[in-house]
């Protein structure tokens, strides 16, 4: 069938080398660098989830930090009340977030576009205020993670790193697999034209629901690991809107609606942070100002982000989820020049379904 998917090309040697590097990293690099890489990996996973929502499902969530916080709190709560090492109860975090997201979606999906964005944000504030008022969850002061001592301290950092790397890889390739599936195709048709999509029988609501629940679970898992690494969670940090600020800026700079965009964005985000805060010694505030300006510039001048530019230089398809559309019926088949047009059509690169 001419409409079949084209495989993204990832050489196995690179996969093997990457896997080896991740396994060996804790013995090769220092603890500080390892912690930094873990943070970057988790941020990549969260950004990819936000990208799935905003870039593919047409859902701009400004309240995604609620799932970061809920994931962290559910992990802490489960680990402490069962007195089990935090990593063993890790699945609790995405499960709780998925259930909450499924319930929230029922009424948040009544809101469209900007109203959805702020509606989710209000929900996040409500959860944050409720957690601050709950003494069992430590109230405003937050809770520590005493069960972390059940893990051998020598293994805490490497384990965090491996889990973070696994989550990041799962986020990137899981999103890739999702977008190559029926659900992904449905999402992209909805994004590109929701009326047309509905008219050919795509269930808009169901596709968005699946994306929202998956994104919530992903952010919850990443948030849980992130706060396990700091051994402490408080509402001010867990439900901090800066989580979604970071996700949004990473995705916009890298390229919204591409799977490689968040990877490029995370590299720039952390490179800028290290450059501004470590090299120039600026405060975190100035770093956020700088990132905000970069994001504004990106929206104004390069709304597709940096990845499409990079791809132009590098060539190749990478993690493209684009499909070859079936050749449209040519009306002007009588003109002899059309043969040439048809044979070059696949090389135009402007095939729909990929941004």
């Amino acid at each position, binding site marked *: 069938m001419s409409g079949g998917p084209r495989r993204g090309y990832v050489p196995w040697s690179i996969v093997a080398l990457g896997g080896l590097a991740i396994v060996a990293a804790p013995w090769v690099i220092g603890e500080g660098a390892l912690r930094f890489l873990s943070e970057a990996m988790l941020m990549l996973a969260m950004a990819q989830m936000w990208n799935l929502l905003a870039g593919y499902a047409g859902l701009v969530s400004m309240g995604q930090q609620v799932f970061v916080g809920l994931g962290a709190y559910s992990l802490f709560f489960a680990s402490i009340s069962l007195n089990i090492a935090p990593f063993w109860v890790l699945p609790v975090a995405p499960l709780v977030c998925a259930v909450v997201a499924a319930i929230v979606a029922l009424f948040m999906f009544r809101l469209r576009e900007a109203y959805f964005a702020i509606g989710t944000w*209000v929900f996040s504030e409500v959860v944050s*205020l409720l957690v601050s008022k709950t003494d069992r969850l430590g109230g405003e002061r937050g809770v520590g993670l005493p069960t972390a001592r059940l893990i051998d301290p020598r293994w805490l950092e490497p384990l965090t790193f491996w889990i973070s790397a696994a989550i990041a890889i799962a986020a990137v390739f899981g999103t890739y697999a999702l977008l190559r599936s029926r659900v992904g195709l449905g999402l992209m048709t909805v994004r590109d034209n929701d009326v047309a999509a509905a008219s050919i029988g795509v269930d808009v609501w169901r596709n968005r629901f699946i994306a929202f629940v998956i994104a919530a679970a992903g952010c919850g898992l990443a948030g849980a690991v992130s706060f396990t690494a700091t051994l402490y969670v408080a509402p001010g940090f867990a439900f901090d809107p800066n989580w979604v600020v970071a996700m949004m800026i990473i995705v916009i700079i890298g390229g919204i609606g591409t799977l490689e965009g968040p990877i490029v964005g995370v590299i720039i985000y952390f490179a800028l942070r290290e450059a501004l805060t470590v090299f120039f010694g600026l405060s975190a505030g100035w770093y956020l*100002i700088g990132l905000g300006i970069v994001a504004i510039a990106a929206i104004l001048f390069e709304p597709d982000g940096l990845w499409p530019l990079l791809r132009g230089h590098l060539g190749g398809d990478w993690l493209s989820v684009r499909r070859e559309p079936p050749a449209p019926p040519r009306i002007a088949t009588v003109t002899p020049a059309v043969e040439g047009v048809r044979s070059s059509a696949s090389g135009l690169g402007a095939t729909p379904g990929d941004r």
Partner: protein
Amino acid sequence: MIWVETIVNGVLYGGLYGLLGVGLALIVGVMRVVNLSHGEFIVLSAFIGVSLLGVFPWIHPLVLLLPVAVIAFGLGFALQAVLINRVVTRPDPFAAILLTFGVAVVMRNLMVEVYGADLRHLQAGRLAQASTGIGDLHVGVLPLLILALSIALFTALQLLLTRTRFGRIVRATADHRDVVRLMGVNPGRVYNLVMGLSLALASVAGMLLAIRASFSPYSGVERLLVAFEVVVLGGLGSFWGAMFGGIALGVAELVGLRLDPNAGPLYAHLLFLVGVLLRPNGLFRVRA
């Protein structure tokens, strides 16, 4: 009696919330854009008030409302002309949302760097303590004054939009951006003026709120959420709806605080979520 007083105070406070939201309702109604930096401009105007009071300490903050509103009008005009007009015609509805969110992030952190993260307060002197009342019912003079000012501004805005040539042009631009071009109207220029007007209203609300409650550079998020809740509860783009939405939120917040002293804005947020669940088109919807 305490409940009557709480509800009366909630209504007075809610009038201010209505004023926080009406500027945003104007933008939503005219350009169908939600300005996510609305809250930051509300806080910024309070900081401009603080700065002006630092230079002219003998002036009463209420006198500063006009100069701050003029500055806010200029800022709004510039924001629209330099940034938002570049994306407002894009088919992607998220470009404007993300752009104004970027502006909000930059402004919030700039305010932290310039003014520090401490909580501030605008002092209104004796006026802030003065109270009046009927029988046992005591209400502050300042909140009454603020409600009167809010109603006056709402009426003025309504008259401006329904009775003047400028208002006709704004409404026509809101309905048919492309058709008004044929009549010699430049939609971009109309948008500049509307954004200026929106932020001027927001600045009045910001100054008045700074007299009633303390603020920090981080208050912008809370202000934006209140303004947005007012807009949605009131019915999108409806001004008197915004006033009633504000009053509903104000009453919910003060009744909530009476029941549960450390609830913060929790009950206002809950009212909003319940409202959205029951009536996604707003509680006081007049027309689309």
